C-alpha cells in the first residue's frame, strides 16, 4: 500500500537532528505513523545507545528485529539496534562462510579494528545493514513497507551517509567498494528522504540549515524539517509587544490579581509576572525569527508540540498522529 503524505514513495526515512532536539523520539513517532494502514515498518538505531528500547520501555534490543509496537489497522513496528561488530561478522559469514575463523578475527582485534578504527568502514556496515532491510523481500514483495533510521546527529550526518567518499580513500576496488556503491545509489534515489529534527532555538536551527546544505552538496535527498517541542505563545499578540517593551500596565496587573483573590505579596508577584512575560515575549520573538529562517529552506515543515510529562508509548502515538495530520505521512 502506498503512503499518502508528503513522503509517499519513500521507503527509507533517515532522521537526524542536533543533540537534545528529540531525534530518537521523532524517529519512533514517524515509524508509528508509517505503520498506519496495516504497514510493516522497521525502526533502526545505529549509535549503540539503546534509545529505542528506552523509549518503548523494553529490554535492550539484541542484534535482531523485534516487534516493539502495533500500529493502527494491524500494522507493526519492528526495531533493530544495528551493531557494527555483529554486522561485520554477519557480512563475512554471508560472503565468506568463515565459521570459527570469525571468532579468531575477533580475538585478534581485527573486528574491533575494522569497526572502530578503519575510517568509514563502520558507517558502511551500519548503513549496509539498513540498506539490506530496505531491499529484503519475501516472495517478491518487500518485507518492510518502510524503514526508519535514527541516524547520527546533524553535524555528522552528511559524512555518515556519504559512505562512498568515505571508503574511496581506503578501498578502491573489492566487495566493500561494491557494497558502498549500491548503498549510495539507494540513498541518492527518491526512495530515500533525510529528515532533520530541530527546535526553535538558534544553534539547532543553524545546524539544520548547515545540514540541509551539506546533504544537498552531496546529492542526498532532503525530506522534511520536523520542528519539535513547540510551545504555543500564551500571551495575546498585543500583550507580547507590550511585555517585550516593558509597557504593560502595572496597575492593571495589580487590579487583576486582587480580582483573582491574590492579596498577599501582590507587588512582588506583579514584578515576577512582568519579568516572566518579558522573557516569554523575547522567546516568542526569537522563535518567530527561527521559524522564518527555517521557512527559507523551502522544505516541508512539520511542527510537533512539546510533551511535558515525559515521552511514553501513549505520547509517541500522539506525536505520530500529529505527523499524519500535518501531512508528513
Amino acid at each position, binding site marked *: 500500500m502506498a503512503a499518502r503524505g508528503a513522503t509517499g514513495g519513500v521507503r527509507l526515512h533517515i532522521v537526524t537532528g*542536533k*543533540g*537534545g532536539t528529540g531525534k530518537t523520539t521523532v524517529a519512533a513517532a514517524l515509524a508509528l505513523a508509517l505503520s498506519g494502514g496495516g504497514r510493516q515498518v522497521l525502526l533502526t538505531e545505529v*549509535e*549503540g*545507545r539503546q534509545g529505542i528500547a528506552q523509549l518503548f520501555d523494553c529490554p535492550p534490543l539484541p542484534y535482531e528485529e523485534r516487534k516493539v509496537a502495533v500500529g493502527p489497522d494491524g500494522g507493526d513496528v519492528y526495531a533493530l539496534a544495528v551493531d557494527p561488530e555483529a554486522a561485520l561478522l554477519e557480512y*563475512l559469514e554471508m560472503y*565468506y562462510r568463515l565459521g570459527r*575463523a570469525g571468532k*579468531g*578475527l575477533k580475538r*585478534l*582485534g*581485527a573486528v*574491533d*579494528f*575494522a569497526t*572502530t*578504527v*578503519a*575510517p*568509514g568502514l563502520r558507517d558502511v556496515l551500519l548503513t549496509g545493514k539498513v540498506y539490506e532491510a530496505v531491499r529484503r523481500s519475501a516472495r517478491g514483495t518487500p518485507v518492510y513497507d518502510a524503514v526508519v533510521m535514527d541516524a*547520527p546527529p546533524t*553535524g555528522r550526518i552528511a559524512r555518515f551517509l556519504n559512505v562512498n567518499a*568515505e571508503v574511496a*580513500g*581506503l*578501498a*578502491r*576496488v*573489492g*566487495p*566493500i*567498494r561494491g557494497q558502498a556503491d549500491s548503498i549510495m545509489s539507494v540513498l541518492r534515489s527518491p526512495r530515500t528522504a533525510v529528515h532533520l529534527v530541530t527546535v526553535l*532555538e*538558534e544553534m539547532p536551527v543553524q545546524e539544520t540549515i548547515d545540514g540541509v546544505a551539506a546533504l544537498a552538496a552531496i546529492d542526498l535527498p532532503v525530506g522534511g524539517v520536523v520542528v519539535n517541542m513547540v510551545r504555543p505563545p*500564551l*500571551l*495575546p499578540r498585543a500583550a507580547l509587544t507590550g511585555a517585550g517593551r516593558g509597557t504593560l500596565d502595572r496597575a*492593571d*496587573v495589580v*487590579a*487583576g*490579581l486582587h*480580582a*483573582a483573590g491574590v492579596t498577599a*505579596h501582590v507587588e512582588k*508577584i506583579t*514584578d*515576577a*509576572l*512582568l*519579568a*516572566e512575560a*518579558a*522573557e*516569554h515575549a*523575547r*522567546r516568542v520573538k526569537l522563535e518567530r525569527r527561527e521559524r522564518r529562517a527555517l521557512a527559507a529552506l523551502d522544505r516541508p515543515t512539520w511542527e510537533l508540540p512539546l510533551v511535558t*510529562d515525559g515521552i511514553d508509548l501513549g505520547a509517541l502515538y500522539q506525536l505520530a498522529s500529529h505527523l499524519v495530520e500535518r501531512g508528513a505521512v
Partner: protein
Amino acid sequence: MNASTRLSIDSLLDDPATRIVVCCGAGGVGKTTTAAAIALRAAERGRRAVVLTIDPARRLAQSMGLDELDNTPRTVGGVDSAAGGRLDAMMLDMKRTFDEVVLAHADPARAREILANPFYRSVSSGFAGTQEYMAMEKLGQLRASDRWDLIVVDTPPSRSALDFLDAPARLGAFLDGRFIRVLMAPARRGGRAYVRVVSAGVGVFTNILARILGAQFLTEVQTFVAALDTMFGGFRERADATYQLLAAPGTAFLVVAAPERDALREASYFVERLAAERMPLAGLVLNRVHDIVPGGGRTPLSGDRAAAAAEALADSGGHRLVRALLVLHAERSALAARERRLAERFTAAHPKVAVGRVAARPEDVHDLLDLRAVASDLAGLS
C-alpha cells in the same frame, strides 16, 4: 527530600592547585558555553586561563575573537584584567593537531611520507575517535607548555559523554595493538611467507582483509603503522600519559546536563564512570533550569495557586492579560517543578555530587556579557 550540596565554583577556580577543568556531558547541553563561562570567570578572578573549545556556535566564537580555526590560543579582548588574570581561547583543529604530532616527532622525510599516506589522511580527519584523541593531545600540549595556570576543556560532541574517556585509549590500543603487529609482520619480514610460518590463521585473515578492502589498502595501513612505529614510542603510551593527566591531582571534571531525563541519565553514567576510574569530579552543572525567576528569587505564588487564580478570573470574565500572565506563571512553575524532581532523583542516586545551576535564557549566549551572567548563576549569585 534530598538536598544537594551546592557547587562552589569560585573555590574551585580560585584554588591555585586546580590546573585543569574538563567539561563533559551529552550533546546539546551547553558544554561549550559552560566551559567558556567558567574560563572567563577564572580569568577575571586573576587566573591565567585558556579555554580549549571544540565546536563553538559562530556568534560566541566571534565574540571571543575565534574567527579562524587555527589551533593557536589567542587572547580574548574585553576581559577584565584588574585581578591580574587573562583569558586565551582556542578552537581545536583535529587534523592540524594530528599533523603537528607527526611533524614534531618524525624527521622531515618520514613526516612527509606519513602526511601523504591515504590511510593517515582518513584516520586524521575521519575516524570518530580522532577528535577525542586530539582534544586529549592538545590538552597535554597546553599543560606541558606551562603558559597558563588553568586550562578549561570543552569535550567533543560525542554520541555519549563516555566517548571522551574511551576513544583515545581505543585508538591508542589499536594502533599499538596485536592486530597492527600482525598486519605489520609482512612489511617487516618482507613478505607473506613469514606470516604463513607464524600462523596459518593470520594468513587466512590477512587474505580475507585484502580481498574485502583491497590489497592496496592493507599496504597503506602497513606503511602508515611502520612509519608511526619508528616515530615515537607507541600511541598507547601517549594516550596513557594523557589519561594519567586527567586522573592527576589538579584536574577537576564538571559534568554538564540539562534538567531532562536523557541528559541526566547520561550524566549519571558519567559520574559513575569517573568514580570507577578514580577521576576527580567537582560537580554537576545543571544548565538551563527554569526555577530561577528572571530578576532573581522565588515568586511567592505557587503554580497551583496561579492556575486557580487564572480560573477564578476566567469565571468572572475580564482581566484577559492577567489571566494569561497567571497561566504563563503556572506553566513555568510546573516546568520548574518537573526539573526539580529530575534533579532530586539525580541527587538521590549521587548524594555526594555538588550541583551548580544556570538559569534558562530566552536567547543563546552570544558574548562576554552573557558568559559573565552564566558564570555568575553558577557561582550562586543570581
